């Protein structure tokens, strides 16, 4: 281990680009807010707040997936990711930041009584509707606000505790401390995962996204959302790892680690497709009106193009391009696939939310890309700062050696 550059210095170019992206995003945000967000037209309003909602929920969940990744590997006693662990940690520091934006947007939508987005907010309609009346215990503003606060708060808190623990590996530890460290890591990771299962694995997507179509439900929906965000989170980690490698950091990381990230991206793209298909086929087969209502305008209506493009980007491309070992070890191809997968799942979130809010017209345009650039800029800016704030390598982690000699 000769000369490891432990400190990441933010390149001026990165700062400029991230600030430029944020400013473009802010301009789009302000124009959108003035022309649409506060306009009298309900459709325009739904367009603006819907766009903000799917972007912020997507990016929060993607960054949270980075912490999930760490926790899963901690529980599995995996050592190979130690050399890139600080990268996933830095991405997970975005959860409180994006989480607060999500929180503000969702609270505005619910407290501001935007029943053109959440139909179940319309109490007069709910009272006449036996289906919505049956869901009232779950879909009501009080529960929504409390549960959303808990979801985002505990994601941030439990993730922060994991990151705090990781700081201990910056100082040497003896065997007894090391054992104790592993035990505490296991407990904290388990706590995060339990809360993750109760939120991302079930309630959060139901509450935030599926309730846009309050009459419709799918038991696959949360898993589908989880798969979508997890595979994007993995791609994001891979992109940052490649970026840092390009800048000459992460000396202990090599193609072996990259190939494992590639395997995860490949595998979870297939997992996503499995859920996509299971959700689609059962509804297609049963052909019951209350279930097909979700797919009707997506498969046969104006969203047809995006719906199937989604399947090509998120299934066929990873399947065919990432299948080969050489592709997973190739930095250029992995960068391309990382960007493609994140874009594909962002598009998936677009059609999940906007497909329900604007059924007649595909609204994909300047507002979506503007707000996307805001979030990408924020992500680059803050992840870069977080990377610079602590050593890039968990230097005295008991499992670090496993990562150094890792070979696929």
């Amino acid at each position, binding site marked *: 281990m000769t000369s490891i550059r432990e400190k990441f210095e933010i390149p001026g170019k990165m700062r400029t680009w991230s600030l430029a992206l944020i400013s473009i995003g802010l301009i789009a945000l302000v124009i959108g807010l003035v022309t649409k967000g506060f306009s009298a037209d309900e459709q325009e309003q739904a367009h603006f707040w819907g766009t903000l909602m799917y972007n912020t929920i997507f990016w929060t969940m993607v960054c949270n997936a980075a912490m999930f990744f760490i926790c899963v590997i901690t529980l599995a006693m995996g050592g190979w990711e130690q050399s890139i662990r600080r990268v996933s940690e830095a991405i997970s520091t975005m959860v409180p930041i994006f989480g607060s934006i999500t929180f503000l947007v969702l609270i505005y939508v619910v407290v501001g009584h935007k029943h053109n987005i959440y139909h179940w907010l319309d109490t007069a309609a709910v009272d006449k509707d036996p289906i919505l009346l049956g869901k009232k215990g779950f879909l009501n503003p009080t529960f929504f606000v409390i549960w959303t606060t808990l979801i985002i708060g505990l994601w941030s808190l439990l993730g922060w505790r994991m990151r705090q623990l990781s700081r201990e590996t910056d100082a040497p530890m003896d065997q007894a401390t090391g054992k104790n460290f592993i035990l505490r890591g296991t407990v904290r990771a388990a706590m995060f995962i339990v809360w993750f299962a109760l939120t991302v694995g079930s309630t959060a997507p139901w509450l935030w996204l599926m309730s846009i179509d309050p009459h419709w439900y799918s038991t696959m929906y949360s898993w589908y959302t989880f798969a979508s965000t997890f595979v994007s989170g993995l791609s994001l980690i891979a992109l940052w790892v490649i970026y840092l490698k390009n800048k000459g950091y992460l000396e202990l990381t090599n193609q072996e680690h990259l190939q494992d990230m590639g395997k995860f991206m490949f595998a979870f793209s297939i997992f996503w497709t499995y859920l996509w298909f299971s959700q*689609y086929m059962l509804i297609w*087969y049963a052909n019951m009106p209350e279930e097909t209502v979700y797919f009707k305008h997506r498969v046969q209506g104006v969203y047809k193009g995006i719906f199937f493009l989604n399947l090509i980007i998120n299934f066929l491309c990873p399947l065919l391009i990432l299948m080969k070992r050489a592709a997973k070890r190739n930095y250029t191809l992995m960068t391309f696939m990382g960007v493609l997968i994140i874009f594909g799942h962002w598009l998936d979130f677009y059609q999940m939310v906007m497909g329900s809010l604007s059924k007649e017209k595909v609204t994909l345009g300047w507002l979506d890309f503007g707000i996307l650039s805001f979030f990408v800029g924020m992500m680059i800016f803050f992840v870069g700062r977080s990377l610079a704030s602590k050593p890039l390598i968990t230097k005295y982690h008991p499992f670090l050696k496993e990562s150094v000699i890792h*070979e696929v």
Partner: protein
Amino acid sequence: MAKKKFVVACFEDEAVLFPAVKKVRSTGYKIHDVYTPFAVHGLDKALGLRDTSLHTAGFIYGITGTSTALGSISWILAKDWPLNFGGKPHFALPAWIPITFELTVLFAAVGMVLTFCYICQMAPFVKKHHFHPRSTDDLFVMVIECTEKTNVSDLQAFLTNNGAIETEVQVAEDGWWLGRYDKNEVPFENKTVAA
């Protein structure tokens, strides 16, 4: 089936085996194979073996399975004998995906197993020569192929210097044959063949 002359060297430790493999290769001897009791990480690279093409074969078997499934189901259900299942279209693609998936997996799995057996020359009644019975127990056995020019005693001394605990010369079949092993071949008995 040609009989060839081999020098068989036994090692007790991986840590000794790796430098020995490196030295033997750089000296220019041809390693026939190294037999180990368990899979040793990195040995394939040390031996300079190329990556297997088994997964390429697997991909080809897989798409054969996919096209077999889609081809036969679509021909049967849409052309040869169209039936009405619950008002679904005859060409009901989503309903066929599970079967297509299963057949892809089946073709790929069975095809790869058979290909693997073919590459390793494994089949009922096919026999190959065992260089050392303890290679399945506790010894790492390196087998070096000799040519007419190989100085066998030099090679044996060279191997002993590099940590081999035991070396011997064997004349053996390098391929496979059908039938039984020689009745006299009893495990754990010295079966050194005079050079």
